[in-house]
């Protein structure tokens, strides 16, 4: 079997943010369902949290390419 183990690292680094983003949007949907008028306020916070959680997966992606030839 050939390939590069760095790509495996990206797969691993995507697990955490995947779970995290799921939790963030679950909380967002919950919040909007309970209080629909808070939607505008919650949206910004949810997307901010999503962006921060996603950063870890992006690190994984970039590092996978950085170490591909190393």
């Amino acid at each position, binding site marked *: 079997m050939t390939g590069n183990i760095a790509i495996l690292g990206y797969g691993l680094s995507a697990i955490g943010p995947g779970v995290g983003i799921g939790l963030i949007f679950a909380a967002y949907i919950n919040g909007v369902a309970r209080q629909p008028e808070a939607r505008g306020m919650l949206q*910004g916070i949810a*997307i*901010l949290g*999503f*962006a*921060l959680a*996603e*950063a870890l997966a*992006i*690190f994984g*992606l*970039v590092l996978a*390419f950085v170490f591909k030839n190393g």
Partner: protein
Amino acid sequence: MSLNVLGSLASADGGGFQTPTTSEFYQPLLFDGPLAITRPAVVLMLSVGLIAWWLIATTKRAAIVPSKGQWATESLYGFVRNGVARDIIGSKDFLRFVPLLFTMFVLILVNNLFGVIPLIQYPTMSRIGIPIALTLVVYVTYHYIGIKRVGLGQYFKGLVPAGLPGWIVPLIFVLEVITFFITRPLTLALRLFGNMFAGHLLLLLFITGGQYMIINGGIGLKIAGAGSYVMAFALTIFEILIEFLQAYIFTLLAATYIAGSLSDEH
């Protein structure tokens, strides 16, 4: 996706399918080496020209009853001004940062959308240098306004929240310095770059892979190739959503960092 890629695939028939690599993103058009005029450079200049023309054309004869173009520009401006700047920075001194945020938003949005517009099809932000340049502007801005407001010593002192027990202060200080000076700019640039890069690579893979399977494969692979094109179509729609979202997130985070430097305890 580009003509180069399709050409190289067609000429390499019989050699098996080559998956698209990172080298697809380096496309010099004129000259070579560090001063080459590359495809993203041309796309970036095109976007700047297009934005300038559009904004001037729709606001030059601003009327009380707006035309369609003026309405579009005004609602975009209103979104950045009210939805991002005023909500995040606060109504006291958000107005002087609106030009910066609006410029960032429009530039990133147009450049991202160029990733799926036929014939252009190159997301400029998938070259790391361009997100780094944009991030540098935000980085200098939020440190500058923070230092100008309270002075250099107080700025560093303000990194640690007041009221912590003495033994934990050095630890928090190191963490906050890393956050402010390394993590924030790094994630801001890499997020934009990574999303555009990964999305474009994914589209490239589905489209060139589908083409290869339809041309070279048997009947089963031909069907799979058609499926690959369906996926490419679905991902293009998804990509448009991501492109809007990334422009919004970049502006949102820039506003958040600026707001952090303006507030009394960051």
